[in-house]
Structures are given as C-alpha cells and as structure tokens.
C-alpha cells in the first residue's frame, strides 16, 4: 500500500512537470530554417535512421509475422499526419501517430517510418519541406517516439493500466514533437532583444493549447487501435516482447 501511494505521487509529479508546456504545431515550412540549421538537423538524424533501418531488417528477418504490424504502425502515422484537425484556439494542426509504433517497434524504427511520411508530404503536398526535413524528422520521428516510449515504460513499470500507459504515451509524444519544433525555431530565430528564450516563449505561446485537444484525440485513437492489436495479434506481441506467455 505504501509503495502504491508513492508510485502515484511520482506519476502526478511527472505529469505536473510535463503538462504545462504550451505548444507549437505542425512542421517547419520549406526554406524557413537557415542553411546552417538545415544541415545540422540532417546530420543529427542520420544515426537514428541507420539504427532504425538495421532494426527493421533484424525484426523482419527474425520473424516475418511482425511485418503486418509494421505496416499498421506506418499506416497509422500516414493517416494521422494527413488529418488537419480544428482546435479550440481556432487554428488547425495535425497529430503525429508516432506513439503506437514506438510501443510496438521502438523509437528508432519510427525514425524511418516518420521520415517516409515527411518526404511524401514535402514532395507531394508542399507541407514541411526538403530543406527542413532533418529538423522535422528530429521532432516528429526522434523526439516524439523517444518521449512516447519513455512515458510508456515508466507507466508500465509502475503497473498503470495498459490503456492509461498507451494513452499518455501517445498524448505526451505528440506534445513533445511540437515543443521540439518550437525550440528548433527559437534556436534558429533568436529574438533581437531577448534572445532564444524570448523567441521560444513567442513560438510556444502563440500556438499554445492548439495541440492539446489534438494530442488527446491521438491518445484515444492509439488506445482504440492498440486494444484491437492486443485482441487479435497476441502472437506477434509476444514476438515483440510486449506480452508475456
């Protein structure tokens, strides 16, 4: 009983730290990052991409049954990042869908899937961009999935109900992505009188709260599809070490 109470306290503490952050939304548009930063973010994502590619090959070679779930993780990201949803702030943004795949395959694999989605959107939809691909991949397909899996593992460790772990993983992963986008813009565009922090507050505050309802939507959708996977793909989940015998 003692232990249960303290674990609840820790959960609440984590929530208090993470929740008040306000958010920026969507990808950085083509040409809107200086050359220096475009190149920097490209270099940063390369190791994540390489590890992700190796992990996909390894997981699929070990047992090709997981292919269908890999497809689901990619398709889920594809759908969600095409849905520009209205938010209470009167502007629009879209969820990222990275949480589901991060739970199933780990964050590195999501870097690969996320970059495919971003290339599709940059080339065909003029949404995001080729020059900002590195930065957008870092926020949506590195930081998002890494925060997501961290949250999932923490809540799973404290024996939270699985739906809650899944929900918070997707919810906070989504929020983390857009907080990262705001930070990237603030780093590249420090305010003339106040520097990076002033810019960060500007980027965070203008768009604050837009992403929160969308992140809740993403959390709910992720719980729905995860419950389905849990019901129908027990064998695959055991292969991926998500279920015990």
């Amino acid at each position, binding site marked *: 009983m003692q232990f249960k109470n303290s674990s609840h306290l820790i959960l609440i503490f984590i929530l208090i730290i993470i929740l008040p952050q306000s958010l920026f*939304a969507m990808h950085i548009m083509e040409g809107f990052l200086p050359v220096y930063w475009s190149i920097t973010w490209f270099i940063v994502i390369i190791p994540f991409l390489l590890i992700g590619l190796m992990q996909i090959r390894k997981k699929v070679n070990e047992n090709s049954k997981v292919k269908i779930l890999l497809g689901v993780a990619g398709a889920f990201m594809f759908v969600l990042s095409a849905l520009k949803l209205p938010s209470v702030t009167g502007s629009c943004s879209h969820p990222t869908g990275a949480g589901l795949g991060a739970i199933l395959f780990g964050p590195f694999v999501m870097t690969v899937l996320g970059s495919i989605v971003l290339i599709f959107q940059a080339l065909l939809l003029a949404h995001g961009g080729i020059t900002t691909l590195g930065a957008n991949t870092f926020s949506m397909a590195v930081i998002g999935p890494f925060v997501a899996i961290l949250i999932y593992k923490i809540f799973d460790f404290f024996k939270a109900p699985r739906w809650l772990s899944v929900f918070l993983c997707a919810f906070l992963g989504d929020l983390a992505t857009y907080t990262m986008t705001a930070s990237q813009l603030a780093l590249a565009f420090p305010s003339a009188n106040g520097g990076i922090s002033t810019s960060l507050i500007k980027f965070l505050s203008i768009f604050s709260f837009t992403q929160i309802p969308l992140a809740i939507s993403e959390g*709910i959708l992720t719980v729905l599809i995860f419950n389905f996977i849990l019901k129908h793909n027990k064998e695959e989940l055991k292969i991926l070490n998500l279920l015990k015998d």
Partner: protein
Amino acid sequence: MNKKFPPGFIKNFILIFILIALIVLPFWFAKDHKFIGTDDIASKAITEINTNYKPWFQSLWSPPGKEIESLLFALQAAIGAGFIGYYIGLMTGRSKK
C-alpha cells in the same frame, strides 16, 4: 449468454464519442476563427522576429490550388486508412476461423 453487444463495444463507443466531440467542439468555441494551419502562423511569426529573413528555398513542386492540395491530403489519408481497414478485416476474419 444473451449479450446485446460484443465485449469492449460500449467502451469503444464512448471513446469514439469523445473523439468526435473533441473535433466538433472547436467550431463552437472558436466560431470567428478561420482555422488556419499553425505552420502558416509560424512562418509569419518568423518574419516578425527577423524582418530580413527570406525563405532561401521554395518547394520543388506545390499542388496547383487548394482543391488539388486537399485531394492529395485525402489520398494520403486513404492510403493509410485503406491499409488499416485491410488489416482489421484480415484479423477479424482470422479470429473467426
């Protein structure tokens, strides 16, 4: 034995209801807004902070017009949703066997 709904149905129903509410409610709360994408708003904020900044690269190709853009977004959603639909059908069929 005579269950009206399959297990999990009511739970899913409630979740989907909340989901729809989250998407529809903004139209009440923010009636006077035009629901512009936050990436467009962000680009404006950049030019406010740094008035000299000019985007140094243009999209290689842009959809000619709003309608074509929404066509392509719909295509993206359809590809993803199509696969998920295929998966759900496949698995439901498999577990009925």
